[in-house]
């Protein structure tokens, strides 16, 4: 699959504003050297990570949260987590850009879950499964199309898969609690979550949606 996370263009120019032309992604050797300094408690290494990846991570977080302040919080949370737990990443075996992006995504989802848990369920449900009647002017049309496509794809899921996604994403339930709520085994809850996301990913790929 050729799709990448997140939107194209956000990763190519990872440099800070004003830093000039887009830079090449750091080589494996550079990442290893940077990681070594981070493990050794060198804050200047964290500044380099910030310079290299902050635009990309903000794009990942913004795609989920649609909120600039939330995206900045997510960026900070991810970089602090990397600084605090650098050995959770192994440059010999992992891919830093993808790993940081997945961390940013999960924290953005956490923000959405906290946010939506505070909002009326009927509104939440409508936002998840229906197209929104929004004016398209001055908006990034492609991105909105994508958001709509994802929501339409969720609505088209089989009920058993849709309900686990809705419960997980729009309440703060863990998969164990989802299992209890639906009176299904924990393993089933986990596998349905995965199956639902795989089905959504497949649908979106077929549609050619470019997030």
């Amino acid at each position, binding site marked *: 699959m050729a799709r990448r*996370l997140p939107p194209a263009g956000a990763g190519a120019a990872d440099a800070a504003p004003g830093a000039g032309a887009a830079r090449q992604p750091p080589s494996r050797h550079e990442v290893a050297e940077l990681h070594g300094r981070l493990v050794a408690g*060198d804050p200047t290494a964290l500044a380099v990570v910030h310079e290299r990846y902050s635009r990309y991570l*903000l794009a990942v977080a913004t795609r989920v949260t649609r909120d600039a302040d939330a995206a900045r919080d997510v960026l900070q949370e991810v*970089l602090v987590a990397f600084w605090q737990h650098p050995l959770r990443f192994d440059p*010999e075996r992992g891919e830093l850009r*993808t790993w940081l992006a997945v961390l940013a995504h999960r924290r953005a989802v956490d923000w959405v879950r906290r946010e939506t848990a505070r909002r009326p369920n009927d509104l939440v449900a409508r936002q998840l499964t229906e197209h929104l009647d929004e004016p398209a002017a001055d908006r990034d049309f492609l991105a909105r199309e994508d958001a709509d496509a994802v929501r339409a794809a969720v609505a088209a899921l089989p009920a058993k898969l849709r309900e686990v996604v809705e419960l997980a994403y729009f309440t703060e339930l863990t998969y164990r609690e989802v299992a209890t709520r639906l009176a299904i085994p924990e393993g089933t809850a986990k596998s349905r979550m995965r199956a639902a996301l795989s089905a959504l990913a497949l649908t979106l790929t077929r549609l050619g949606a470019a997030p």
Partner: protein
Amino acid sequence: MTVDPTIVPSPGACMSGLLGAYVLGACTAAEADAVETHLGRCVACSADAAELALAVPPLARSATGEARDAPPPVEAASLDAVLAAALAARPAAPGTPVRSEAGPVRAHGWQTPAYGRRVAALDRLLVELTPADWTRPAVAGWSVRDLVLHLYAVDGLLLAALGGVAGAGDAGHDLERPDEDPVTRTEVVLAAAREWPAEQTRRRWYERATLLCTAVADTSPASGVGVGVGVGVGVGVGVGADADAAGDPEPLAVTAGDWPSIPADHLTARGFETWIHTRDIAAATGFTVPDPGRDELHTMADLALRLLAEPWAAAVAPTGPAALTVTLTGPGGGTWSLDPSGVAERPPGDAPVEPSWAAGVLPAADPATAPGPTAVPTVAGAVTLGIVPFCLLVGGRTTVPTVAAQVAGDEQLAAELLALAPSLARP
């Protein structure tokens, strides 16, 4: 947070079963930590998670009703905020010069010691360990926990030698005998610390190591300006007090354990030992910790060669005046010349990197640099090996056959050096 041992997969096992729940945020915090630890070392699962993440529905509108798709710009203030939050969660390596309101960073000539960086690295390993990891056997009959307390004990010997007891607070109970044998001191500490929980063990070791960096910094000629390190504890240090008044004389040697040396070398040795035991602990617990950076490796190798020069000269004395060129390759490498007068590093670029010695031809000895009245050594040799294998040999963690040293000229000269290298290692 410590990762729940019941969740962490065995090495090599993938966590695809949890990825859907993880991506939807529907795991416990401990499970999420375990997944993230796995993703950091599994490209396949990481790509899998990224793919699943794309399928998560974006929220329609923000909490304020404003829908946004473009990421916000990266502001300069963002880095300041990130660094402030990061350093509040985990300080920079002990001994790192920081700007203070009182003035500039610590005076020139003082950098984060290799020891501070090795302490920071081991600390990050220890925070990832489970309670079960702390009890795993590590090396020499010691568990992971014993090994940390061993480092704590030997740090205590040096801290006592430097007179740093005053800043050690209630953890200074074992700082009375700087000349005690390190193993004996370790046994005493192990007995005294039997009830310490893992987290307390880690914290006490870290705090003492930080004190040590501060204490040694205070003995350096450049001390006294802009102190602003980590804990900011004032340590009463007697050694080196005269140094400031007299300009930049050699710092006074102190004896810690059974080794008299200047404080800076003591600290390099502490960094060396901490690195070696970090490797031991990582190996026992399934982690990989990066090796020290180039400057650190260089400093450690240089110290090892200086310590080895005398016993090596004694060992090869029967062969007559001898000279050995030691080339250590890799980041931090360099070329050193050993002869009966001692060891000297050759300036970079001065030494032939790819010597013709491989063909059995030795360079003519340079009369200008050759020692003593017998200007031309009767025997000469050269040895080339990686700087990390050399350091591991010195640390007693590898063997001569496995370091793959290339030897030229008189092979016995190199063989004596390599055979002596592990003699510097302690438990």
